[in-house]
């Protein structure tokens, strides 16, 4: 099945949910700030949306077609953690992330 704009949009939504879910998780667990339960719930909800969207996409497309997006997702997540969580970025981390992302793309390309 070829990738239609709608399917591509769904992939983007699924991957965004993955990033947003992780940010929520970290936010909930990282501090003693109020609203920990709400953030945790929001994280689990976004993860659930991702899970079902992803399963739906997997039934339509090959995993090897979808997996490269997971590699790119990693770069977006690191950027989001840097911007929204103000986590420290090191050169090591950038190099590592790029290597892992390239690796994920290769693993799925074959």
């Amino acid at each position: 099945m070829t990738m239609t704009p709608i399917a591509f949009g769904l992939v983007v939504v699924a991957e965004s949910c993955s990033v947003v879910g992780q940010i929520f998780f970290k936010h909930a667990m990282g501090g003693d700030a109020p609203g920990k339960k709400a953030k945790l719930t929001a994280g689990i909800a976004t993860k659930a949306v991702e899970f079902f969207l992803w399963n739906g996409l997997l039934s339509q497309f090959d995993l090897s077609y979808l997996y490269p997006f997971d590699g790119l997702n990693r770069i977006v997540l690191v950027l989001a953690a840097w911007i929204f969580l103000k986590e420290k970025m090191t050169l090591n981390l950038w190099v590592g992330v790029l290597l892992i992302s390239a690796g994920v793309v290769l693993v799925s390309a074959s």
Partner: protein
Amino acid sequence: MEVTTHETGKKPRKGWFFNPYVHIGVSIVMSATAQVCLKKGATESVTSLWLGVEVLRSGWGWLGILAMVTSLFSWLYCLRFVPLNIAFNVAGLIQVLVPLSAWLLLGENISATRWCGIVLVLTGVYVVARPLMRVEEKL
């Protein structure tokens, strides 16, 4: 080199069981286990559009869900102490564990390109984790 292992000032309790890095490991292994179980469950059940629901009919499916929940709890525990971008990238090991266990347990093939990818991921995780190892040694 300073790595903010405990950026919030919180310290895990003593003992290996409370070590957040042990829990990244648990989370990774459980996540890979979940993938293998779900795949087994999915091949067992009838293939249809409702695959995601049908998997609940097989014991493997439930085992996979149990593993996934365990993985989530370990993951949340480690996030209390470890920065997200470190934890997430160390968890990149899943990308290696899943094809390896698919090869060993499900008899799936690993091509040359895929091996290259696995080596790249391993190198990347090593680069991310190396400064941490140094810090942990000092502790």
